[in-house]
């Protein structure tokens, strides 16, 4: 599946190793990949764990739309998005984005587009547990 939302932990490298990109393999010159991980600190505070809420149905639709935009705009051979939801611990992979193309610029730009747009458009919300209290992340960091 080219877009996947999972409550289970996922292993990005196993995910990629098991995935066969569309298109002629011998025509693919470049893969650009991005993996986001949960950190144990945010805005200066130690974060013990996180709950990632989402809007089932709309999330998949938003990711699929993003993916199609990227594939069409950069004429990619393929693109893949995997996003974790539910209860996360520090070091857990949150998101995997992959773009395959004949040429490196297309793959690199599409990968960056996907991770930036995903943050702004896909309906996910992070709630952090900071030892004795919880807080919703209000805004994504710019970078």
């Amino acid at each position: 599946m080219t877009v996947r939302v999972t409550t289970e932990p996922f292993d990005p490298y196993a995910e990629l190793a098991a995935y066969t990109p569309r298109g002629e393999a011998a025509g693919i010159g470049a893969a650009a990949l991005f993996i986001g991980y949960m950190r144990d600190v945010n805005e200066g505070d130690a974060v013990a764990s996180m709950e990632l809420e989402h809007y089932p149905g709309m999330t998949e639709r938003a990711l699929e739309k993003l993916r199609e935009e990227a594939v069409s705009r950069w004429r990619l051979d393929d693109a893949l998005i995997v996003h974790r939801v539910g209860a996360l611990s520090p070091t857990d992979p949150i998101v995997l984005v992959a773009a395959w193309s004949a040429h490196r610029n297309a793959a690199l730009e599409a990968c960056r587009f996907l991770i930036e747009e995903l943050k702004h458009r896909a309906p996910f919300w992070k709630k952090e547990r900071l030892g004795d209290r919880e807080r919703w992340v209000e805004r994504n960091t710019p970078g």
Partner: protein
Amino acid sequence: MTIRVKFFASLRERLGRDDLELPAEGIATVADVWARAVPDEPLSGQVLMSVNMEYAQADRSVRDGDEVAFFPPVTGGAA
């Protein structure tokens, strides 16, 4: 003859509700849905909205059977 309404994340927690159904009568827009569902609070410019899982503005028309959702700014992805 109903409209399904959903709230997510901090908005869901603050309002103390996630799912509800409203009779469609008298509802023309997303703003009307909010006014009926949350009568004691004006619709804030911070709130994001969707109709049938597509982003929408407050003046977007709503019809019987639609699913309308309200939620805070999204925060997925990576650090």
